């Protein structure tokens, strides 16, 4: 009896309709501000089996974007070409079947050394790449993240540098690779790489425009001038501006990798605004770095947790909000954390979980500070 009266008493202390009104308003505002409309995503480069935990976590976090290559293990026909529609459709469907949305191809097929170094057979590669773009679009994916790093791609010199609380971080120091021998491909000039890039863009961008495929060139990582005789050209802001001018198009765009652009000595929030307003940012790697060499582009860096590096992540997120970015964004190169075996440095599970929480908190905040809350 006492309980009933007490419940009744409190229930009526604030009117039901008033309570419902504020609750509904808040829930609506929360929904509107969710992730500022950005597609929160994760990278799954090692395939579904190795990323089983991350797939599960992604769904529980509600970060449904899946970024990966065209994984042959998902083809029904094991002999299928990765640019064939059936193959691509198998991959898209496989991601859908685990509850995720395959939204960006990072590391596309048929864009390898022949095209980047201008070797024999590049026309065939480019032809297949164009076929790939067309079939990919048909399968429902419209962003390709690619790079211009032939032979030697992503490179780090330390995969287990102790960070805060003993977390393991990835790091690079040019001094450790500068004396390595040149590769079997020999030496190339920067101008040769430019010529090859120009050849590629002129062949591909008009097709991408027709198809509606957003090309998002990733900066060189690391963005030093040369490694083992292979030069790097996508390693300065000026060079990116030059690249964008070769074939000006909304579909000739950029992957805003905050880490590498920051290492070129630029202010990331301002760069996001400039390229964002020009419509060039198609995909984002939300990432942070510290311990630079002082030279530009930096010859040294360590990849940190999102909240402790040199880049002002709040201002960066505000810039994405201001330019109205609604595409895919993923954390990149997260520290390996307690209890994790460091088998995929930069791509373990808990670091991504922390990063998604952080990105989401920032996105919701910048979204809400621009709405008047009643």
């Amino acid at each position, binding site marked *: 009896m006492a309980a009933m009266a007490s419940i009744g008493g409190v229930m009526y202390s604030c009117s039901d309709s008033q309570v419902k009104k504020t609750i509904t308003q808040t829930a609506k505002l929360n929904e509107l501000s969710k992730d500022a409309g950005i597609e929160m995503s994760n990278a799954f480069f090692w395939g579904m089996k190795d990323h089983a935990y991350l797939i599960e*976590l992604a769904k*529980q976090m509600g970060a449904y974007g899946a970024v990966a290559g065209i994984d042959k293990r998902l083809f029904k026909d094991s002999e299928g070409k990765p640019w064939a529609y059936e193959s691509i459709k198998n991959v898209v469907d496989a991601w859908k079947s685990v509850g995720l949305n395959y939204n960006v191809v990072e590391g596309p097929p048929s864009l390898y050394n022949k095209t980047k170094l201008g070797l024999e057979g590049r026309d065939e590669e480019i032809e297949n790449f164009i076929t790939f773009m067309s079939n990919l679009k048909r399968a429902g994916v419209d962003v390709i993240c690619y790079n211009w790093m032939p032979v030697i791609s992503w490179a780090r010199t330390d995969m287990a540098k102790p960070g805060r609380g003993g977390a393991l971080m990835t790091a690079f120091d040019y001094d450790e690779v500068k004396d390595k021998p040149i590769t079997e491909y020999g030496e190339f000039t920067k101008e040769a790489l430019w010529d090859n890039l120009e050849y590629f863009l002129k062949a591909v961008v008009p097709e991408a425009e027709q198809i509606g495929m957003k090309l998002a060139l990733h900066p060189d990582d690391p963005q030093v001038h040369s490694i083992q005789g292979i030069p790097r050209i996508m390693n300065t802001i000026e060079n990116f501006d030059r690249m964008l001018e070769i074939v000006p198009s909304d579909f000739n765009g950029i992957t805003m990798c905050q880490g590498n652009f920051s290492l070129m000595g630029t202010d990331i929030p*301002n760069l996001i605004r400039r390229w964002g307003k020009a419509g060039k940012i198609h995909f984002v790697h939300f990432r942070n770095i510290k311990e630079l060499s002082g030279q530009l582009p930096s010859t040294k860096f360590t990849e940190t947790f999102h909240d402790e590096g*040199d880049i002002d992540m709040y201002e960066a997120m505000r810039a994405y909000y201001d330019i109205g970015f609604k595409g895919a964004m993923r954390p990149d190169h997260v520290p390996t954390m307690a209890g994790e075996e460091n088998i995929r440095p930069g791509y373990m599970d808990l670091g991504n979980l922390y990063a*998604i929480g952080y990105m989401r908190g920032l996105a919701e*905040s910048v979204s809400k500070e621009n709405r008047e809350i009643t």
Partner: protein
Amino acid sequence: MKDNRRSFIKKSTALAAGTSLIGLTAACKEISEKDEKVAQKEDEKIEREWPIKENNGRPKICVGTSRNSDRDTMRKIKQIGVDYVLMGGPPIPWTVESLREIMDAFKEEGLTVINMMIGGHPNTIYGREGRDDEIEKIKQSLIAAGEADLPVVEYNFYAHRLMEGYYEKLGRGGAGHTAFDYEPVKDLPADAERGEHRAEDLWKNLTYFLNEVIPVAEKAGVRMALHPNDPPIPVSHGSDQIMATLEDWKRLIELVDSPSNGITFDCGVTRELGEDPLEVLQYFGSRDRINHMHYRNVISDKPYVKYSEVFLDEGQVNMYAVMRDIIGLGYTHGIYPEHPRALDYDKEHPEGIRNQYPGGGGYTGMTYNIGFTRAMELAVLSSK
């Protein structure tokens, strides 16, 4: 609001604007701060405070841990970027030595203890013989806390806690929510040992307790934080709950008028009452009576009766506004994003889940919560 880094930015943009806008008409006054920033050259770095550090003028994101935590546990906390911890204190009476031993062990790993829960006062709650002895021990403990620089001591004052109403409800991707329903458990019989207790008696006992300890706490420079009834329901096993309504919380801080007599503000529990977390935060915060804070989100189906504790990014609490307003009030104590959700990752790892709540999670869930909370704190400290 202290430590607002917008002032840094204003200074530097004003300087930049001063040189670039010379000779322009008054129309330039209409250029918003945002536009000015866009107009800046990208190599022109704005002077900003980054990374933002928590300090004495700011709130402190914290997590709970055992006072006997080993080094690995402490380092796991450091990994998620947390520098402050809270825990259940040692048995009363606390001594400066017993507290320093604990606090120093955490300090060695870069963690500062900002809050200990004090307990061991059942006779005080029930108004039984022996309460004066308990109260004496608590007073000694508060003095020790003051000397050991422990700023906040949290406590409970419930006759009984209705744990039976909790159950796990699955949310997105099968993650566990901690749901509660009062209906099936509201008439559970009294506990033979604890008996039934009426609100007026409990209030008398609480008043007696506060009159004794708050002056001691105030003198020791320690703030006490009474944890609300959680679940916030009227009766548990026949015993009234006296910290389960907004009126109760208001009454508490009026019993003894001192900043040492404060509450643990829980924005989730507040919503469970059907109250507006922002209004309640303003009420207690503007009176400087929020001495600790729980940062959670909920979906309330019926106030005082049925609700689910959900992820921070879903639910009926505007977590951004809570963060904005608490920082706006100059709050400097703990923000604890407690009760993380049960993620399969924790369920599938040994000792992943170590809590008493159905649908409650472990370190992985907390990792997500801290990322989210840290970002909101950063955003508020960075914005106007």
